């Protein structure tokens, strides 16, 4: 079998780097980005990491540190991050025949057969850094697990210049000896603890385990990890990412809500947003589930959680039908008097556009009319975001706090970054 080479390109502190892109004043300043309802820290700049603030820390727990070090706080601005992510991925696609987008800020590139992957990795890094404007690190190895580990090393050790190649097994050994097992792709906290009990704490020790032993005591997945650490490629590049099988739109409310109209409005909003995502994927759905629940941590009120599912007569991606269904399902599960903490809409059982089966009394023309209307609405909303359906709430403000969100730099003409003349 031909030797493989993978590269993992991963953006450094991605959300924070995005926030810094048009803000040179934030370059050397500590920055954090908060989760959707501004509860927890979900991204930290290097300066914040150095202060020992952990991922996922609730904001209120570090108020003092934030004041003391003048840490800049941002609400998450996913439209913007998504735009920058697409730019990164688009740039990477010029570098390899096969790019697998692994998450919003990382992608695997298949570099098998490339002559000098290290130099190539440096060119990739330099290009993304310069052209998109967010810094990345590149980890290279004969397996995906090693590429991941190489990326960890590239981020941790500054003298690498952000690019590490672990194809050479001697170099691998040195890193293995000084790296804790928790840094290995797929080794979570539970595995780390359980490995520590049998005296395995470094990557080197894990790689040295007998594969049969690992399979018996742990799992085939962990066995695969050990093989990959030893340079045997077991995890293939996903050729084309499979179309989504489910779309979920849900949120925790910024504050407890017990008003029927507001919860219904939220659900209609989710239905509309889910419909938009569905159309973006060029799919239609057959079933919808709506759920509402109170907070399981609320000691003052009994816990209530319920969901209802309905299916459409004909597969659809029409916001009107989805909003209608969400309203119907909501009526079935709504109970007055609970302080609701979360609600959501799930769509399932997809079929691609253009492959629909028409029921007896429906004609393709109905679908076409609906498609054209939805296309128009999506276009208008992309640019101004001003059309919604009767059931949706009129304002977004009460819902997510989002007070500290940066402008829609890349998606609204009115919010372009300003440059001084």
């Amino acid at each position, binding site marked *: 079998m031909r030797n493989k080479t993978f590269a993992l390109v991963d953006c450094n502190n991605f959300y924070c780097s995005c926030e810094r892109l*048009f*803000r*040179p*004043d934030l370059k050397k300043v500590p920055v954090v980005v908060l989760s959707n309802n501004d509860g927890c820290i979900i991204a930290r700049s290097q300066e914040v990491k150095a202060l020992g603030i952990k991922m996922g820390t609730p904001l209120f727990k570090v108020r003092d540190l934030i004041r003391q070090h003048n840490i800049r706080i941002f609400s998450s601005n996913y439209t913007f991050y998504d735009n920058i992510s*697409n*730019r*990164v991925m*688009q*740039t990477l696609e010029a570098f390899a025949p096969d790019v697998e987008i692994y998450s919003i800020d990382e992608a695997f590139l298949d570099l098998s057969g490339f002559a000098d992957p290290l130099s190539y990795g440096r060119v990739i890094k330099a290009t993304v850094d*310069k*052209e*998109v*404007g967010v810094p990345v690190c590149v980890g290279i190895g004969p397996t995906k697990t090693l590429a991941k580990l190489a990326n960890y090393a590239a981020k941790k050790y500054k003298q690498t210049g952000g690019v590490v190649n672990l194809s050479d097994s001697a170099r691998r050994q040195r890193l293995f000896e000084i790296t804790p097992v928790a840094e290995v792709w797929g080794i979570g906290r539970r595995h780390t603890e359980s490995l520590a009990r049998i005296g395995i704490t470094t990557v080197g020790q894990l790689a040295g385990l007998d594969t049969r032993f690992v399979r018996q005591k742990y799992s085939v997945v962990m066995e695969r990890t050990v093989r990959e650490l030893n340079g045997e490629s077991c995890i293939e590049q996903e050729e084309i990412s499979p179309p989504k099988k489910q779309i979920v739109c849900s949120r925790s409310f910024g504050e407890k809500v017990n008003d029927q109209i507001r919860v219904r409005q939220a659900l209609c909003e989710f239905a509309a947003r889910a419909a938009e995502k569905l159309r973006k994927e060029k799919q239609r759905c057959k079933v919808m589930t709506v759920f509402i629940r109170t907070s399981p941590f609320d000691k003052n009120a009994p816990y209530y959680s319920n969901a209802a599912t309905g299916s459409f007569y004909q597969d659809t991606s029409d916001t*009107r039908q989805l*909003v*209608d269904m969400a309203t119907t399902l909501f009526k079935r599960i709504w109970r007055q008097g609970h302080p609701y903490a979360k609600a959501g809409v799930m769509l399932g059982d997809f079929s691609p556009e253009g492959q629909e089966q028409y029921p007896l009394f429906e004609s393709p*023309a109905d679908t076409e*009319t609906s498609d*054209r*209307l939805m296309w128009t*609405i999506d276009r208008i909303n992309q640019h101004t975001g*001003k*059309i*919604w*359906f*009767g059931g*949706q709430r*009129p304002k977004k403000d009460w819902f997510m706090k989002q007070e500290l969100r*940066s*402008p829609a*730099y*890349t998606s*609204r*003409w*009115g*919010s*372009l*970054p*300003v*440059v*001084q*003349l």
Partner: protein
Amino acid sequence: MKATLLGRADQLDTEQLHIPLFLDRVPAGFPSPASDYCEKTLDLNELCITRPAATYFVRAQGESMIDAGIFDGNILVVDRSLEARHGDIVIAEYGGELTVKKLELKPTVRLMPMNKNYLPLVIPAGEDLEIFGVVTTVIHSLRKP
């Protein structure tokens, strides 16, 4: 000069009328008989953008580049993939802000305003000048809304 990153249309947003769209059906019109004969339309993006992933739009604010044809409120198309050369109009980082100036590399590195009422910004030797990108196009609407 202070940069405010919210543009003016953001304030407009809140003042605009919110018109909900109801669930009623709208009859579709008669399809255009010409629709089968359409050729591709011209797209300004094609003219202004060569590398979409590296291109950003920014809004200019101020008067210092009037002689370069850049006016307050104009939208600038910025290509980050281009190597900034002597004489290019660039977006550069200066004093914690993004600024638009003409780049001079010789005899010394300077950011030149193009309006005689403004002074050049001299970058001291040994100090790094961070270039955000090269301005390739100015979008200047002539008719006020």
